[in-house]
């Protein structure tokens, strides 16, 4: 699945996107701490204590305010943000690099294709031109 590929490969497998992910993680931890601190102080001011809401009688609210959910949301939001950015940055460059490395190894590479309007379309056009010239010279 394309989305799984983005999470498992570029976000955590590439140095640049890993850095961006950790940056997002630091940001989401800060946001999470601020928001949860404000929420807890608001509940405290209203005289609502954790044991009153975490006893399961408040259904979804109990789940949303549990420590596990809060931690999950912090991690999940950083991962979503990291994936969004990696999709723009790391994916196309990795693809171009792999294509070049395959060619260097002597593998007969097909034409490199990019989506219409891709920011690397000029470079890809030049690379394909280079490949065509070399193939023509072989013949």
């Amino acid at each position: 699945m394309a989305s799984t590929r983005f999470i498992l490969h570029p976000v955590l497998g590439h140095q640049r996107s890993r850095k961006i992910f950790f940056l997002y993680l630091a940001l989401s931890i800060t946001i999470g701490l601020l928001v949860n601190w404000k929420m807890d102080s608001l509940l405290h001011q209203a005289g609502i204590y954790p044991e009153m809401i975490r006893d399961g009688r408040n259904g979804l609210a109990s789940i949303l305010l549990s420590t596990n959910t809060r931690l999950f949301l912090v991690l999940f939001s950083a991962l979503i943000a990291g994936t969004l950015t990696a999709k723009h940055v790391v994916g196309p460059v990795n693809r171009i690099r792999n294509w070049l490395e395959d060619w260097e190894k002597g593998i007969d590479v097909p034409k490199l294709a990019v989506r219409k309007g891709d920011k690397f379309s000029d470079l890809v056009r030049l690379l394909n031109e280079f490949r065509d010239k070399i193939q023509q010279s072989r013949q």
Partner: protein
Amino acid sequence: MRRHFITHPKFQTAFTLSFVVGALLMVLIIGGANILALQMLANSPTLPMAQKTALAQQASSFYQLILWLGLLTVAGLTPFALFLSYKFIGPLNRLELWMEQNLLGQDPPFLTLRKKDEMMPVSAVLGRLLHKYSARLRRQ
């Protein structure tokens, strides 16, 4: 010193947008979950009326915090994202130009990029390939 930070407007806009939208999503996901919990508690049948009223009265300060966090995220991260996008895409122009010169058989000097440049591994492999096939390119 490089002065132009916007060299590929289309890419840089898309990158900056995705970076800022990603950060905004974090505020929305974390803040939204808490707002939902707050709303549910304010309407919960298990809590006394006095507590529900107090919660509803103080909720506006919480919404303000979420709003400020969102605004600060956009204002603080936009220039940073633009800078990051430049760091990433800056060498692409040079790489394209260098590639064009090679294809025209002009034999330009080897392209040197900074170690931290994102396009560095691409240019290194490409340099080796061009060196390998330079004679064939010149013949054409």
